[in-house]
């Protein structure tokens, strides 16, 4: 990517990279101006007003309100511009587009395990198509890691005990560095890999190429299997006759809790309800579900969530919601 013998920027490979670089250059330009200004002032003063006689003292000047206001207000305004621009960019990078394709990534000492919704799995690599937003749902099996792709200008902590997300839209095909950016022990600097952005048709070919490990069942199908294996299905029955709430259509809906609060059923809510079910009990149900903390891995949990996401509301439930 960079043909320059002395590159100052990582490859520009995502839809936000150019804006990120511009924000960086803007703050760098402001900083350079002030560094040069301060350096020039003190150096010129130090030379121009150098002591010429041992008894000499400086002029009797105590201050200037006008100057104080000037160097209070101008830095304040510039800092606010940097704040607003940075906050705006951050908010956009915190909200994945609705049409983003989803990939699940779990960090563990010291590797990245990736699963595509179609079932394809990778370790320390991530294949993505160019021109489509990719949303990564990130978990950790042990300590805090951080999924960092400098070429895409994105980074997010993988925090044990919760799921986090990041997204990016690759714009240029290529192979890019992937790092763990949060210190995680002995082989932290070996917890690296590659992000391979491919033309869409190549990506489709890769996805269906059995030679690279395709042909596995999809994440949701695996989740359905786990849903039976962990006996979730005995209580969470689709027809409402079980002892637990119906899960059809629950993902993304508003759930009323026993303590009167209402929460949105997102990935973290479902994760928490599996791991520590008593944390948020659905109104009208008893806290009888056993906690799965310690018995279910993050990877399996992500698949169960993928399955629950596919459960569409049956007609009566949908009608009730409206």
């Amino acid at each position, binding site marked *: 990517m960079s043909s320059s013998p002395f590159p100052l920027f990582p490859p520009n490979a995502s839809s936000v990279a150019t804006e990120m670089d511009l*924000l960086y250059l803007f703050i760098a330009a402001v900083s350079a101006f002030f560094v040069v200004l301060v350096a020039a002032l003190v150096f010129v003063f130090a*030379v121009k007003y150098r002591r010429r006689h041992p008894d000499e003292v400086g002029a009797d*000047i105590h201050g200037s309100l006008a100057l104080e206001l000037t160097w209070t207000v101008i830095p304040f305004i510039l800092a606010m511009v940097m704040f607003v621009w940075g906050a*705006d960019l*951050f*908010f956009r990078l915190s909200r994945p587009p609705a049409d983003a394709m989803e990939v699940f990534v779990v960090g563990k000492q010291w590797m990245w395990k990736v699963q595509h919704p179609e079932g394809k799995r990778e370790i320390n690599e991530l294949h993505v198509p160019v021109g489509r937003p990719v949303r990564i749902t990130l978990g950790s099996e042990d300590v805090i890691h951080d999924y960092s792709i400098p070429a895409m*200008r994105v980074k997010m902590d993988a925090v044990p005990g919760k799921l986090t997300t990041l997204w990016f839209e690759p714009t240029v095909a290529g192979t890019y560095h992937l790092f763990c950016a949060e210190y995680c022990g002995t082989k932290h600097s070996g917890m690296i890999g590659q992000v391979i952005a491919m033309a869409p048709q190549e990506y489709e070919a890769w996805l269906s190429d059995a030679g690279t490990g395709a042909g596995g069942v999809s994440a949701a199908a695996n989740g359905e299997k786990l849903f039976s294996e962990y006996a979730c299905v005995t209580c969470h029955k689709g027809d409402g006759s079980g002892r637990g709430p119906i899960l059809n259509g629950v993902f993304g809906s508003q759930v009323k809790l026993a303590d009167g609060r209402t929460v949105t059923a997102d990935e973290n809510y479902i994760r928490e309800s599996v791991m520590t079910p008593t944390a948020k009990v659905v109104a009208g149900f008893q806290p009888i579900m056993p906690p799965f903390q310690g018995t279910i891995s993050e990877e399996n949990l992500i698949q169960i969530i993928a399955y629950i996401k596919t459960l569409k509301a049956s007609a009566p439930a949908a009608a009730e919601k409206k």
Partner: protein
Amino acid sequence: MTDNISRSYLGAPHGVAAWLLTKDHKRIAMLYLISITIFFALGGIFAAGIRLELLTPKGDLWTPDMYNKLFTLHGVIMIFFFLIPSIPATLGNFLLPIMVGAKDLAFPRINLLSWYIYVAGALTTLAAVFNGGLDTGWTFYTPYSSIASETAVTTAAIGVFITGFSSILTGLNFIVTVHRMRAPGMTWFRLPLFVWAQYATSLVMILGTPVIAITVLLVGAERAFHFGFFDPRLGGDPVLFQHLFWFYSHPAVYIMILPGMGVMSELVAAVSRKQVFGYGFVAFSSLAIAILGFLVWGHHLFVSSQSIYAGLVFSIITMLVAVPSAVKTFNWAATMYKGSIMWTATTFWVLGFMGLFTIGGLTGLFLASMGLDIHLTDTYFVVAHFHYIMVGGAIMAYMGGLHFWWPKMTGKMYNEPGAIASAILVFVGFNLTFFPQFILGYMGMPRRYHAYPEEWQVLNVASTLGASVLFLGYLLPAFYLTWSLVKGKEAPANPWGAKGLEWTVPSPPPTFNFDEDPVVDEPAYNYKPTREVHVG
């Protein structure tokens, strides 16, 4: 022994016991000076280990575990055992009572106790270093530190816990001294700005330090007894640790830099022989930084899964810190305008500080801007930024202060050309070490990496070369300052022609500082022309 010295605090009863049981703030300052210098050297050795490893992209000099211990111990030693005590415990201890016109600090025994606590904490931490080491990073992030690390985390945590009390006691002592021990006529607005800065720092020390002490205890308790504070498998929250840790550790940055700013205000005024421009603004900007500094901890957590709205608040308050910092910088520059600028070694340290601190402060804006922080956080950009603040700012100011007050503290003059060479070597070496790291950071090089992609070698080699120059710059004072003690010319009471009560007493000062209780009848930095002022 010369007459000058035998009359002074240095000539008071000698012997190991007389020093180790002293209640004289000046001797305690010297005990601290010796201790922190040892830790500075130790931290420097660890830094050399890091830079040597990073000469090559492959992790070929140390094992990964050894490398992880090196950067952890570098951070722990430099922050807790050098930077935090540096200016307050040495220059502050020595000068604050004299500057306010007092015979000693308010609680001389507590002052001595604080040094013993520091030593106890330091020895406990050293015990951890030699019994398994420590590999959590100085940040002790959970759940790695509480469940995964196989090193001596608990011992090190106890060491940090103990040392915290030393800071708290020093802070308490300073605050009471400033309130109760000022000489007649020494009103608040006649206080030297160094005292204001120490006062603001002391507030942060006594309010913030208990939180880190409790936090590291919780980590120890989770490790030893499996209490679930931070490990999600025990029902804890790992991000809670980060909130608690940075609630202290961000203000701790101001514990390191505020005293440096105070030193700078003194040095700029003395070097220029001029009233500090905008005294009130400089004084209150210290308090503003101390207060705002408590409200910005969440800027370390932008990508930690913290609420994005919380991030918004932390981002804007962090941006506000830029304002009092800019106010100080411009006031220092304006103080030099139409001054009578002395060109000695002190001046070189002052100019070096102005350049490096300005870069350090401005690069904080990159990280405070939330969107850009996504790309920059956890990279070498952050490493470069905080070294510009802590080494380029705090240590440059500490070295400047040490050179400026050395004649006062020891009664000896040092070799000027040697001191100027040291300041230049440090400035050049520092920039060569850390400026390339800004670029490496934007390229994406993560922190705490033992090996890295080959394309980053050139900048890493530059950085290691710079570190060698920096090493020479810091080694030089060990020679000429030690030499000054043996063969240095005797210092007059006021070698720089500076204002301030410390320059009215002999060099070195007598045990009780003032032969007669001073009465203050003029503002600080009251440089009045004694002859025609030359402003050409």
